[in-house]
């Protein structure tokens, strides 16, 4: 038996997050970027929601053709910017992190995927720090579907794939989403308003454009996974001690 490890994370954040007054956005529509800091939302004042609100997470989406399937997660658009409902984001994020923590507790292989070149190094370093795997490069077609032939027989596929951006550089859905669905691999995906969330198991509506947002998510996932692994090690030690105790007593 193991405790659900992740009602953990969100309430335990003690980082002094700076309110980002200025930030570097990529893209020509930078000029229209406005920090939507205070919105009159009816939210219960948990630490998290305030802190998320204070960050420019609801950044404008540069290609404002919002996917039809994302409409439940959006309030709407204002001044060509799609505003995401952060209540739903919090819920989705919580369940996604919970799931990730359970997966990490069981010692499974987690793969971080992102095709955004701006955050490639960040994602790879996050993966390295967690002790998990990353793929921020050109996705070879048969990676998941043709794995035994590409890597050798007996290769183990990832048990969870975390997409930090479900789009590739041509603004189409990443091949990994479809392939993971084919191979029955659960996915956690950060879906922006122009993404299609239907194939993602645990979609997390949110912005994937700004560095601050990406760093936040990377930090959250890293913390979750590290805590889950620590918990696992603790439990194993306890079990080991209890087994030793049993044997010595008997």
């Amino acid at each position, binding site marked *: 038996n193991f405790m659900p490890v992740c009602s953990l994370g969100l309430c335990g954040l003690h980082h002094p997050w700076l309110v980002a007054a200025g930030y570097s956005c990529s893209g020509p529509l930078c000029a229209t970027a406005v920090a939507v800091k205070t919105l009159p939302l009816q939210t219960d004042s948990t630490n998290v929601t305030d802190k998320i609100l204070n960050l420019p997470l609801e950044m404008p989406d540069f290609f404002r053709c919002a996917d039809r399937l994302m409409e439940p997660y959006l309030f709407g658009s204002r001044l060509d910017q799609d505003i995401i409902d952060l209540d739903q984001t919090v819920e989705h994020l919580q369940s996604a992190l919970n799931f990730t923590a359970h997966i990490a507790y069981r*010692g499974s*292989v987690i*793969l971080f995927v992102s095709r955004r070149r701006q955050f490639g190094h960040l994602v790879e370093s996050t*993966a390295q720090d967690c*002790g998990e*795997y*990353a793929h921020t490069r050109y996705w070879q077609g048969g990676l998941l579907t043709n794995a035994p032939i590409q*890597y050798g027989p*007996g290769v183990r596929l990832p048990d969870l794939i975390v997409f930090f951006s479900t789009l590739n550089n041509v603004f189409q859905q990443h091949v990994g989403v479809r392939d993971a669905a084919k191979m029955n691999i659960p996915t956690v995906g950060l879906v922006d308003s122009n993404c299609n969330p239907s194939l993602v198991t645990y979609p997390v509506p949110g912005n994937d454009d700004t560095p601050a947002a990406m760093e936040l998510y990377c930090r959250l996932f890293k913390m979750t996974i590290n805590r889950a692994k620590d918990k696992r090690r603790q439990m194993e030690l306890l079990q080991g001690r209890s087994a030793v105790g049993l044997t010595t007593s008997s």
Partner: protein
Amino acid sequence: MAASGGRTVGSFLWKCGNCCFNFNTVSSNLTRQVLSRQLCVSAVLHRKNLAAAGPEKFSEEFIKKQVEEFNIGKRHLANMMGEDPETFTQGDINRSIAYLFPSGLFDKKAKPLMKHPDEVFPKQRAVQWGADGRPFHFLFYTGKQSYYSLMHVSTGSLVGSRWLLKEELEELLVETISEHDYARFIQLMERLLSLPYCSVEEDFVQRYRRQLEIQSSKQQVQPLQYDQHGVAYSTGDGRRKTATGTVLLRDSGSGSISINGTNYVHYFPVLQDREQLMFPLHFMGVLGRFDMQCSVSGGGHSSQAGALRLAISRAMLSFLSEGQVETMRQAGLLTPDPRIKERKKPGQEGARRKFTWKKR
């Protein structure tokens, strides 16, 4: 492939040794069967196209077994040749194989070969994941983990060294890389060098550079000789196609050239040939300084001129400084021209010319 040749010889010797040992104990029938069975097996292995083998073709135990067989075979070979097995080098092995298995073939790769398995079998990647299935490298799922992790290093003098070639990089990483990847790698390394404080990462950078061999130091320059009047002279010889020529170069002369006893103007009526003779002297600016006595034979007039040119350049080396030798080498004056007449092929009129094609 070379691998097949080597395996036969090595395994053949190993079997030889086995047969010698087992002669008294095992019945001759069995031995013959064993021999024939093993030879059949090796023939089967021959037929398998090793070049089309996928990854992980040779497991670790296989390579280990090959190494043992090679060592035992080496000792048997030494015994056969009457040499000491302890001090039997690779050169001795090559000579013994050439003696025992004389081959009239021209292609070096087609001749029988006995080399250490590490040189024969391509380097394979070890299994990339542990007992629980988790891969070791965090970029394993990209397919090119070593290549992509190259730039993840939290990261002199470059003169006289060059970047690794694509083949060398592939050998280092034990992965296949496309040309795009290689170009990107070079681009990133150059970018790294262009940043300030790149000297901090010099060790990392040096790992991916190779020293250029200084070609000019390979030139053997004969010391000057002096005749009874104290005049310096030197000799040189050169070859081109089937012509060979020798030159005696004498210092403090007036630029007279005699070939086979006759004046060079009479010997080479064509201007082009005389220009070939002049070129080394003109290049170094010593046209009127030397007297030359040349002798040449074989070939036609053009190849004789080329042979003499090479001979003159080589003779001149003793009179020149290091830097001038290097300039001569870079000008191509010291490189023997390797072109020879291409052989005629059957079914064709000449080396390249085909018979007239008739439509009907």
